[in-house]
């Protein structure tokens, strides 16, 4: 019997058991999935975006299904960083999985304050900085459209934390590779992309939007080819690790991202349909490596042949 392939990856100073993480906002605070998944088997859990104070979120309807995808406008409803640190984090830590906190702010000061609290509590493995949420009126995406503002948020967060900083980019950026270069220069330890793509759906009977906020963010298999191309573009541009996100439903999807050079991947919408999607993807990657005679997932990452 041959040994199981080694799935370990190094990412911004972290050693992950495997390259499969959950995408922010699709895995709650982790506990919701504990009955379905042995959380310790995951590479990391990225929790729902956290702001300094709790946020109400947008009115319903917040979601609508579209062809092979879904639009959402949750509006970053969250319990706030203090309640997260006091109530959720201690319980989540017991599962023995690296926890990456997703940080959101309306202002640069808020990004700093949230990052500082999450750093001082000593329970998080890394911070993911959300400069890409399309569903809030202030903050989020407004910092992610241009390299300069993205770099400023990154540099300010770096000043208050010694944790690895992952910056999550938006497909709405004027040039996503420019934003990637700017956050790398500002000290980002890794980049994740993409956040959802803005979209809309119309009710032809009422002639109104099917969402409360007119537009929402599209996720799911519909966006995968777009996301994959953007991930590949960014990988060619920066030298820090890149985490691929967008429409990953199966191990095959995940492998496409790894082959173009993503150091890790995040599973999002798939968690809603199958709470065991992450572990099935991990098993599928392992099976693929065995079939290809590869001893490590690192032998596959970045092996894309352009011609």
């Amino acid at each position: 019997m041959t040994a199981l392939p080694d799935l370990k990856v190094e990412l911004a100073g972290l050693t992950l058991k495997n390259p499969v993480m959950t995408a922010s906002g699709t895995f709650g605070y982790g506990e919701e999935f504990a009955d379905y998944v042995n959380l310790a088997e995951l590479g990391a859990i990225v929790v729902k975006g956290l702001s300094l104070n709790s946020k109400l979120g947008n009115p319903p309807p917040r979601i609508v299904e579209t062809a092979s995808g879904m639009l959402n406008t949750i509006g970053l409803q969250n319990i706030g960083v203090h309640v997260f640190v006091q109530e959720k984090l201690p319980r989540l830590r017991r599962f023995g999985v690296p926890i990456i906190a997703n940080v959101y702010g309306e202002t640069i000061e808020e990004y700093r304050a949230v990052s500082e609290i999450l750093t001082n509590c000593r329970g998080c493995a890394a911070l993911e900085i959300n400069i890409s949420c399309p569903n809030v009126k202030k903050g989020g995406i407004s910092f992610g459209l241009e390299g300069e503002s993205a770099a400023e948020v990154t540099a300010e967060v770096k000043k208050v934390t010694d944790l690895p900083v992952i910056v999550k980019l938006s497909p709405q950026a004027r040039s996503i590779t420019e934003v990637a270069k700017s956050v790398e220069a500002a000290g980002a330890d890794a980049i994740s992309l993409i956040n959802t793509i803005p979209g809309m759906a119309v009710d032809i009977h009422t002639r109104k939007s099917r969402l409360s906020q007119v537009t929402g963010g599209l996720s799911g298999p519909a966006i995968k080819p777009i996301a994959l191309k953007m991930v590949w573009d960014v990988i060619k541009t920066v030298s820090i690790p890149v985490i691929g996100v967008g429409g990953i439903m199966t191990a095959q999807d995940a492998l496409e991202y790894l082959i173009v050079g993503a150091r890790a991947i995040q599973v999002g919408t798939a968690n809603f349909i199958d709470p065991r999607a992450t572990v099935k993807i991990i098993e599928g990657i392992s099976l693929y490596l065995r079939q290809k005679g590869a001893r490590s997932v690192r032998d596959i990452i970045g092996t894309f042949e352009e011609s």
Partner: protein
Amino acid sequence: MFEAEVKTNFEKVSGYGVISLLLPSIFPVPRPGQFIMVRLYDGTDPLLRRPFSICNFHQTKENSQIDILYRVVGRGTEMMRSLRRGDKVSISRPSGTAFNIPMHVKRICLVAGGVGIAPLVYLARFFHRHHRKGEIFTYVGMKTEKEEKGLCVSELMDISHRFVVATEDGSTGYVGLVTEAFRQDINEIINEETAVYACGPREMIRALASFLIDGRVFCQVSMEERMACGMGACLGCVVALKGREGNVYYGRVCTDGPVFNLRHVIWEERK
């Protein structure tokens, strides 16, 4: 997640069906008001699971059976209509909050709008089994008489002390909205030992809220919202609720509901 096998799938009248699913006997016994998430198809379009109320549940030594009442409204339910005996679907365990019947309650009033009757059928059977002397007053609203057959009302009719059908077009029973039919009777039928349970379109429940004054009558409602995960993670299926300190917050229909106390629901304007 459980694999379920289609036992039967009847279209009772055009657009209304009842599907019976066979499940392993380890499937947890649902409480009235809970729902399941059904995945009808392995592909990506339709993508998400669909939530369905549990209309009935039986257990034998070998297996369990869930009945779902559905109306064909979109691609998911269209696909459900085409399922045949032996087809396999994936379903979640029973989720969400259940209707609560306080100890002192001897009479329940059910107010249903269309397929909203489904969880109330299961509740009525449960109440009838556990409160032999209890009374059930049922009010079912629909657009027109034809729907009556589709809404599997016959068993509910048999165990109800009073059974009122309201049709919007006046083709049978009370002419008008079900909430109006119910309102006419409330002084006569509601006392300290009565509880009201409702499920139906948002506007129906809103109308109920307008005349069931806060706190005086125990009333629980099953709310509906578009849902992605059905397990509390996505925060997609929220309704506005009154918090303990008079604050407003968004509660999840899937895990904080679907059953809420009517007095906790806030009726904000929808765009």
